């Protein structure tokens, strides 16, 4: 005989302000099979849990229904209490009378009745619950880090230093990400390359890290602890084992007028190139779309000058398969280009540039060797305008969010500008100065007080060119919204930070969710900021939303910590809520007819063929078998099985019908 306990939670006033909890408890006490029923202010609190534990022991309960919030948060809590009371943890069910009832209805009899119905359904279900044992799966203690920006680098080094293997996959020919393009960094103004390059080298030298550059993720299968990943290593047309990085090829390549991506088009590079001098690895790649040989079959000068004979024109993409236990997504972000702004000339004015281009102009290794010179004619701009929030906080342009980093880097730009052009004047059009962070506001004050940046509060309506000047038309909203017109020599747009190219495809390959702007979503905005909602896949850095370096690095170390925790055990425990195919004693063996309709519908490839043999070893039948390691409990197979041979543990057909019956026959 079932002896069920019912525990009605008030959730402070969240439930009790709308639902009459004592009444629900009273009614539930009279349900058949209910041996105990009570209500309490906070069931998840310590005393609340003790109440559950004690009630199980005292009333010799066989199952419990906690009727409170959604199981998302507290099911583990009450399963633990259930186990502490001496029951199998899966003899616990939650009836959600908060999200499904109190939060969505007004106070009244009907609402109470709905709460009662929900409880009745779960009572009928829990009566039919089976004791289940958690599943144990082995863990592959190798981590995959996708993206080699500062976030990826930090995550890889931390994991490797914890003693685990790391595989890093970077799309570009070198690691480093956007930070390698920056000049100096706020709020300390230390040189970006100087602090980043040593870390890049560490990645290359760490024996625990295997680095694949010029590579992308082809496919990902499996689950936490046991992912199988295919990596496409794009052909560099160079044998990496032979190349010694001498640079003869890049110097001698005659085809030198290709837009330099690293310099954001403000310079050229040869068809065979290393993206920047400090690149890791220091191995060139041939850009097949530009190379003269690939285009018309003649040239091969690089091949001739390469002493170690490392050039391979016939090299093909390579697919590499690896097994990993956890994945860190660190693919970073991108920024809008100047052509995104109709009112600023659709990108047609050469001297309107974006923030990254300014970083390159200010960088000692950049196209102007660190002198601020405008792209059109190389003049030093004496009046420069910075436009903050260009495209950010702009629903009309489809980007309603704040890009977060621009206020700070714009202040930095104004400071750097003044350091380099002493007689120059910087104007900054802004809406708010968002400088929350340690030493951040002080930094923007420094731009204003020491480096004479003129902050004008208003958006820029239009920019046009006249007589070699850019006429910037804005308003000063602190001055009766009067129009301000500045004849500038150069304009820098702090354009919105956006999701990186290919983010959506990657998210789909990995089954992680992303928001409407294609940034990857964390599992919980407050409590799980570095987890995705796919177990074993974590995220760090600007692939989640625009972030600065300290935040990206902190998140990356967070991810490394999470992965180290995961790798601390050699086995993982998984919820046993998976599909099972019916098994019976011979000669029936199973109700499964072996039609295998279920096999192709399983999104996780979890369904296998099991051969049933008689005593003499002759094949009697083939039955479906569900690999408990792979099954995610989605239930698709249950729906297609014609002979009703598959059940999801914890959600069996029997349990479901009992719930529906309880509702219909109340």
């Amino acid at each position: 005989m079932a002896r069920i306990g019912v525990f009605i939670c008030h959730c402070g006033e969240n439930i009790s302000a709308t639902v009459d909890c004592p009444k629900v408890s009273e009614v539930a006490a009279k349900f058949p099979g209910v041996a105990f029923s009570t209500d309490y202010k906070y069931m998840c609190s310590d005393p609340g849990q003790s109440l559950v534990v004690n009630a199980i022991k005292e009333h010799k309960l066989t199952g419990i229904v906690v009727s409170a919030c959604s199981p998302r948060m507290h099911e583990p809590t009450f399963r633990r209490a259930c186990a502490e009371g001496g029951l199998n943890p899966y003899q616990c069910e939650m009836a959600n009378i908060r999200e499904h009832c109190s939060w969505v209805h007004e106070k009244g009899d009907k609402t109470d009745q709905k709460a009662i119905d929900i409880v009745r359904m779960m009572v009928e279900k829990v009566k039919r619950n089976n004791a289940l044992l958690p599943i144990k799966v082995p863990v592959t203690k190798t981590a995959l880090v996708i993206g080699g920006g500062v976030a990826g680098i930090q995550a890889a080094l931390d994991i490797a230093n914890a003693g685990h293997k790391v595989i890093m996959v970077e799309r570009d020919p070198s690691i480093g990400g956007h930070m390698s393009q920056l000049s100096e960094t706020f709020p300390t103004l230390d040189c970006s390359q100087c602090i980043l390059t040593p870390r890049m080298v560490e990645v290359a030298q760490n024996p625990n890290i295997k680095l694949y550059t010029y590579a992308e993720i082809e496919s990902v299968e499996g689950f936490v602890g046991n992912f199988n990943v295919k990596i496409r290593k794009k052909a560099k047309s160079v044998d990496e084992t032979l190349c010694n990085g001498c640079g003869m090829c890049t110097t001698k390549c005659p085809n030198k007028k290709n837009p330099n991506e690293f310099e954001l088009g403000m310079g050229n590079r040869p068809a065979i190139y290393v993206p920047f001098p400090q690149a890791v690895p220091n191995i060139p790649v041939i850009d097949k779309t530009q190379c003269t040989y690939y285009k018309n079959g003649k040239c091969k000068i690089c091949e001739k000058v390469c002493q170690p004979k490392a050039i391979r024109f016939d090299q093909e993409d390579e697919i590499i398969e690896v097994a990993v236990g956890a994945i860190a997504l660190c693919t970073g972000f991108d920024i809008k280009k100047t052509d995104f702004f109709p009112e600023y000339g659709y990108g047609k004015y050469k001297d309107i540039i974006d923030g990254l281009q300014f970083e390159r102009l200010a960088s000692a290794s950049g196209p102007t060797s660190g002198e601020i010179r405008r792209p059109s004619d190389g003049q030093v701009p004496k009046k420069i305008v910075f436009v903050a929030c260009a495209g950010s906080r702009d629903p009309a342009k489809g980007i309603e969010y704040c890009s977060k980093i621009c206020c700070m880097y714009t202040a930095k730009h104004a400071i750097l500008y003044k350091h380099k052009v002493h007689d120059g004047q910087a104007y900054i059009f802004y809406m708010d100065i968002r400088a929350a962070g340690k030493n951040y506001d002080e930094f923007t004050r420094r731009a204003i007080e020491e480096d004479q940046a003129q902050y004008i509060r208003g958006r820029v309506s239009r920019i046009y060119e006249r007589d070699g000047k850019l006429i910037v038309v804005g308003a000063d909203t602190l001055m009766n919204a009067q129009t301000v017109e500045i004849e500038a020599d150069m304009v820098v747009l702090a354009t919105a930070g956006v999701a990186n190219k290919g983010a959506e495809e990657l998210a789909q390959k990995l089954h992680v969710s992303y928001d409407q702007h294609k940034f990857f979503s964390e599992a919980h905005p407050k409590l799980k900021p570095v987890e995705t909602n796919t177990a074993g896949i974590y995220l760090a850095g600007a692939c989640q939303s625009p972030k600065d370096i300290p935040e990206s690095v902190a998140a990356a170390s967070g991810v490394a910590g999470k992965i180290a925790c995961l790798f601390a055990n050699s086995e993982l425990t998984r919820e046993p809520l998976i599909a099972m195919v019916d098994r019976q004693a011979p000669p029936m063996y199973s109700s499964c007819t072996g039609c295998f309709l279920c096999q192709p519908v399983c999104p996780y490839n979890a369904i296998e063929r099991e051969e049933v043999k008689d005593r003499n070893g002759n094949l009697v039948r083939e039955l479906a078998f569900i690999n408990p390691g792979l099954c995610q409990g989605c239930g698709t197979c249950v729906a297609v099985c014609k002979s009703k041979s598959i059940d999801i543990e914890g959600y069996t057909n029997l349990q479901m019908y009992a719930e529906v019956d309880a509702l219909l026959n109340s």
Partner: protein
Amino acid sequence: MKLGFYPGCSLEGASREYNESVMAIAEKIGIELVSIPDWNCCGATAAHNLNKELSLSLPARNLALAEEAGLTELVVPCAACYSRFTMVQHELMHDEPLHKRVNEIIGKEYKGNLRILNVIQFIDEYVIDKLDENVKFEFNKKVACYYGCLLVRPNKVLKFDRTEDPQTMDIVMKKLGADAIDWAYKTECCGAGFSVSFTEAVARLSGNIVEDAVHRGAEAIIVACPMCHSNLDMRRKEIDKFNGKKSDIPVIYITQAIGVALGIDHKKLGLQRHFVPVNLKDFKPFVKKEIDVEKPQNMEVE
């Protein structure tokens, strides 16, 4: 080929030459423009400044009359009328009760099946393909194409060209052999209906437009709106006073420019009616050449 036509008051009065040039090129190309029978004034700025329902009803009556007359496409050369018509059509089609109410007021039913074309759309769809075979002279001048407000704003409703730095007129002019310059005042307002009631503003706004065009070496300003034309042309005295210098850059309707290229008699195009004399001469004979007029980005509006 027959198309519906709404001349509007300006084209019947102060902007006769616009009408004359539209008619002249239509005739040359073999298109008959059929006026809406008994059409009335669209109400222009005055109506929507003072009364919303009136501002909807006056255009709606015309649209209903056009539909009654069995017209399906309506060419509206006046940018102001075009804007009013398109806005009214949009509002009525998106607001059922309002549509009903306006039908009651005008005592007619407008179903909303009319396609409204501004003059550039008309040129783009019906004239441009016939140019090569009919053009006699190359319009070998530097021109500043001026669009004003009403052809391009609000872009979400009109869905014509791109919001900033539009290109459709530039493309037509380039096809005729002109050098359409890149300039800064393509879509800045000329002062519109304030010509009489707030002349100082018009002098300033139109003054800036003329000044920038002249400054960049344009030999003519090309327009497609009678209000823009009258402000830039008839108000030249006030404009020059504002700019503190005399200017003689003529203001030419795009249809007049096409007419000139087609070899139509300048009188027939009404060029003699301008306040600022049109002294454009030395047009070279047109030689057909493949002009590479690439459509710049963001031209397609969905």
